[in-house]
């Protein structure tokens, strides 16, 4: 199988849209609501999940023939836990302020349904390269939703993007105010709903 055969391409691109972990499978919602109040932690979280999903998929795919079926979940968890610990340490070492903002949610990647789902559904049955692409695809599919949600929440809730003030002072002078509800997880759920709505409408139109 060549690197970008048609099947591999589908494996990579399908999770971005038609089979998106958040929008289509509605997995990993808790972390999507918790870390998206600002853009920066959302981007870091999205990248962390992408890296961990891809690596875990590769490792499990390599081990898939030797893992005894009855203890496969434990093995998967050990692999994911090791990767999460590494990522968490890297974040603490190089991006300390972001890791403080993400608090427990990096550690909770272990319990992220997307990871377990991909390991069980894909990596256990497929070769290394497709597993890698599947992991990257699903991670990025998760990440872009996070970024979209965080974009709106930070812009409307704080008037900033990546910490820089975007909405000019003259708006505030005219009576504009930041929307406090945007910083609450309740509004994040509504925005995720809107993204799902827009995505479905787009896909239906394409059909």
């Amino acid at each position, binding site marked *: 199988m060549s690197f970008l055969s048609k099947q591999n391409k589908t494996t990579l691109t399908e999770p971005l849209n038609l089979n998106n972990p958040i929008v289509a499978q509605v997995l990993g919602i808790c972390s999507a609501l918790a870390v998206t109040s600002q853009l920066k932690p959302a981007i870091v979280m999205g990248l962390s999940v992408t890296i961990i999903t891809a690596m875990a998929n590769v490792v499990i795919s390599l081990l898939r023939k030797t893992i005894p079926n009855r203890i496969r979940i434990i093995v998967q968890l050990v692999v994911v836990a090791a990767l999460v610990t590494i990522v968490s340490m890297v974040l603490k070492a190089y991006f300390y302020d972001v890791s403080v903002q993400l608090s427990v949610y990096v550690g909770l990647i272990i319990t992220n349904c997307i990871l377990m789902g991909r390991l069980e559904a894909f990596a256990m049955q497929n070769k290394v390269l497709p597993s890698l692409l599947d992991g990257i695809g699903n991670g990025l599919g998760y990440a872009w939703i996070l970024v979209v949600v965080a974009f709106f929440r930070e812009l409307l809730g704080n008037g900033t993007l990546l910490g820089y003030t975007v909405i000019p002072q003259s708006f505030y002078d005219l009576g504009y*105010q930041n929307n*406090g*509800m945007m910083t*609450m997880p309740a509004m994040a759920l*509504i925005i995720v709903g809107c993204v799902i709505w827009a995505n479905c409408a787009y896909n239906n139109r394409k059909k």
Partner: protein
Amino acid sequence: MNFIKKFFDKTRPTFSEGGKLHALRSVYEGFESFLLVPNTTSKSGVSIHDAIDSKRIMSMVVIALMPAMLFGMYNIGYQHYMAAGLDGSLMEMFAYGLLALLPKIVVSYAVGLGIEFVVAQYKHEEIQEGYLVTGLIVPLILPINCPLWMMALAIAFAVIFAKEIFGGTGMNIFNVALVARAFLFFSYSGKMTGDEVWVANESILGLGKDLPDTFTCATPLAEVGSGQMSASLNDMVVGLIPGSVGETSVIAIALGAALLLWTGIASWKTMLSVFVGGGLTAALFHATGSTPIEWYEHLVLGGFCFGAVFMATDPVTSARTEGGKYIYGFLIGVIAILVRVLNPGYPEGMMLAILFMNLFAPLIDYFFVQHNINRRLKRIKN
């Protein structure tokens, strides 16, 4: 009435199939059936003939809201003239309030009905009349100084996310007007619950005068929270206190309540049990010393009466079983007082109480329906 009918008869071809304005057919039908009794009847299925349909119910509730709205206008003027230290005649105060409130009502209807029209047009459905009441209630449950754009945003949010995505009028789980208020409450709490929002502070068309931006005036309930209350019971019942536009006067609300109960539109069971629940809870808290004011003062203050009369009884979102209405209403009263007394952050709890019970209304109905089924099953078996 005849000239209205003639007008609709004359313009009908423009809107029917092949006419110039066929695209706006649903708007035409909406206005026609609002003003006149529709001259089409259903062609299939079982239809129940009643003297009253949902458009007439809505108009009746709008009429019942009139006393509260008119008094609200007067009170806006009264509070402003008092704050400004001006002497105004009754008519001047009323005119000031009218001019302050009118833009809100216009914007509320324009945004809400606009969305309804677009959705009806898009889905090729008839326009649903549900917004008629909501459009008037929203300005009445907001402080007078809430900016127009915030209100418009909240209404758009509420109509789309609380009503249209559930399937439109009659399908919503939450009271639309309260969702609009809750959106503002959580989004822009400074403009909704702060001290400076309750009194209009600018001159309008030469009436009244500009007050400094820093002018503040707390509602009696907020004062209760901080341990001081200046309003007399008389003022609270008549309604000459700062507060959301339509909620202050118990007498005006009572007039509306009488009309709703007399026509049978609102359920007396819900209404009564809200007051019973609230009164008992407040009396209990007063006896234990948790709240400084008497139980009847709790009932006449804030949005309690307005909520009990116009929003708890909303036939769509309240419990629909007759027995369920008692429990539904009772718990609204209990929760409203609980929030007021036990949560120092929120001086008023009526909005949260009604929204919360809206959520549980289907569950209450479920238990009552099941109970009924079980009772009848038992009867068959014996």
